[in-house]
């Protein structure tokens, strides 16, 4: 497989995964804005922007947080490299460059998404359209993932899913980092409606609101939520699930065994210890520190993959 092809495949799936994250975050912000609080309405746009890693970009363009601007910035803005629009465009353009490494179905899925996206962008954006747009985005990403399943199980397939899980691990960890304080045991004491809402934000933005209820019996507690997102291997967005899949796809690559064992050695620590962690041990270590450390491991892994395979 050409290095350029592998790199493009890796990024296509990262962009598509990121598009989904953006759509889910927008959905959370939108829902929250519909719930009244004593001062007016809930405003979660600030944390939506930081979870999206878009605060800096946003504030270089706008002076204050305003729902319409945040929605436009995260969904349609071409200047925002992580907007849904940018992600889908880049994924499609990368796919154009590696069409031969794709099945026709996978290409058609991306090309169709892109063409429809252009149509949306032409139309006038109305606030009530947002739920349709986010739902549409999630559908497009699912279509892409589904069609990727028809690929040959060669290295290209594994590069695609390495991209998916590295992006997801990064997105999940960053989101946890923005909201980690609501999962600290002290948050239980504060209790009340607000914190419940904060948990719901977390669950919804990780597309796990209903899944969580199925996975755990009894009351919702911060410790269960932390367990769900960090350690539960049934949760397709948990850090543990992501790291296991990263390791699986990395070890499934048929090319360059030496490079693979090199890369794996940098990851081994996280991969092996996460099996034996408990929520208590992580809290004791420091939830924030744990998540930050995780993010930096993932980013190091990404650098290594770029250097070893795509350089």
């Amino acid at each position: 497989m050409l290095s350029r092809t592998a790199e493009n495949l890796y990024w296509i799936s990262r962009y598509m995964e990121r598009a989904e994250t953006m759509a889910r975050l927008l959905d959370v912000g939108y829902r929250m804005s519909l719930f009244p609080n004593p001062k007016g309405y809930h405003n979660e746009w600030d944390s939506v922007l930081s979870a999206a890693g878009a605060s800096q970009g946003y504030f270089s363009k706008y002076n204050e947080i305003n729902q319409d601007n945040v929605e436009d910035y995260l969904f349609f803005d071409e200047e925002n490299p992580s907007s849904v629009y940018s992600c889908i465009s880049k994924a499609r353009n990368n796919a154009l460059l590696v069409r031969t490494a794709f099945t026709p179905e996978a290409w058609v899925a991306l090309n169709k998404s892109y063409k429809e996206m252009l149509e949306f962008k032409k139309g006038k954006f109305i606030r009530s359209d947002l739920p349709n747009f986010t739902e549409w985005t999630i559908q497009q990403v699912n279509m892409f993932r589904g069609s990727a399943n028809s690929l040959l199980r060669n290295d290209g397939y594994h590069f695609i899913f390495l991209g998916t899980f590295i992006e997801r691990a990064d997105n999940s960890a960053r989101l946890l980092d923005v909201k980690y304080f609501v999962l600290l045991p002290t948050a239980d004491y504060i209790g009340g409606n607000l914190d419940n809402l904060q948990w719901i934000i977390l669950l919804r933005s990780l597309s796990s609101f209903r899944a969580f209820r199925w996975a755990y019996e009894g009351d919702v507690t911060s410790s269960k939520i932390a367990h769900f997102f960090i350690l539960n291997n049934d949760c397709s967005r948990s850090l543990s699930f992501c790291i296991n899949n990263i390791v699986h796809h990395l070890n499934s690559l048929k090319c360059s065994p030496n490079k693979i064992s090199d890369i794996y050695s940098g990851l081994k620590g996280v991969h092996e210890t996460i099996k034996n962690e408990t929520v208590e041990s992580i809290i004791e270590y420091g939830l924030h520190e744990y998540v930050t450390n995780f993010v930096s491991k993932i980013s190091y892994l990404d650098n290594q993959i770029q250097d070893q395979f795509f350089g």
Partner: protein
Amino acid sequence: MFDEMYSEDAQIRQHYLQVNSWLRTMSSTVISQKNYEAESHFKRIGITFSVKDDDMSERIIPFDLIPRILTNYEWSKIEKGVIQRSKALNAFLYDIYNNGEIFKAGIIPEENILKKDSYDQSMINFSPPNKIYSPIVGVDLIRTGKDDFYVLEDNCRTPSGVSYMLENREIMMKMFPDLFHSNRVLRVDDYPTRLLQTLMSLAPKKCDSSVPTVVLLTPGHLNSAYYEHTFLSDQMGVEMVEAQDLFVENDFLYMKTVDGPKKIDVVYRRIDDDYLDPLAYNPNSVIGVPGITHVYKTGGVNICSAPGAGIADDKAVYIYVPEMIKFYLGETPILDNVQTWRCERDDDLKYVLENIDELVIKEVDGSGGHGMLIGPKSSKQEIEDFSSKLKLHPEGYIAQPTLDLSSSPTLINNEISGRRVDLRPFCLLGEKVQLCPGGLTRVALGKGSYVVNSSQGGGVKDTWVLAD
């Protein structure tokens, strides 16, 4: 005007009977529905082309649902004729870069060839594997009568359009499977396999593998035929590479893979000579591979088509092809050329100027239907302007009679109406020489129009060759 479906006494020709009755069963609602289906299919798969001077827009070529049908008898003449012609063109290329027998025999004046820009001096005394310079020859044919097929031009560099031949057939089989039960249509879908075999059979002498590594070299996604590049490499299962994926080391060509460098034996290139290698040709080329021609000349890789093969489809060489066939193959040409006047000859120029309103004048170096004058379709002013250009640079032009291109039933606003067509079959030359039974039929969609080029409002049809 010859009609492909109706005979002179207004009867449906035997081989169109089935298609004709199928057409009668379709209501205009069904027709427009099917047209819409076909169009959205082509859009979704992205079989688009970009138009000259308008490089931002992606368009699809209009597809006509009514197939163009050739009988086995008609095809066998085309097949023999195109193969004969393609062999002669390759023999010509070998000759002019090596012994120059055709000059010595006085058939073609040496200076007519050697001074041409498309004659590549650096190819002198070099012979590519199997002496094949142009492994894929696209021959543009027109028809004026029942048995009258003429060659309008040859394409020896990197003829495009074969993806349409294949995709048009796929969409027809998908939308109208019944048609293929009632008509025995020879398959074309093995073309990519045949192409791969052809390319593998042309591995260079230093290749020691029984399965040579073939790649398709594309200039990139902005090229108007990019879809075809992706389509062919995908169908052949070979890597589609860009120059940035390749490098030269120790007299071999490699591509950068996740496994490290991988040696390449055959490059099916879809970029022009001039851009191939900045060290040997245009030094500003960024889509070429530095040093690739050195590897080529030392037998480390084969480049298909060979640099310098383009001279064979020069319009000034075209007129000599019938004589080439006699000279190299000792055969009588099966397919004739269209009568051609060369304006550089005084007598010809005189004739052309006197009869300009009946002739088609083409630039020797023009392509895609650009820079030409169609006498009968032009205004007085246009003719006058063109005449003065012609007098100024007669060597830059040739003239041909306005040919009565055959007409084929075509759906225009959901109604059947005759429109003029041509045909481009694709000949493959490797260890075997073969012609895939089909080709690209282009159709001039304007009423009475002669211009079939996609860049000027032409469309395409599925082309059938019947098994019996």
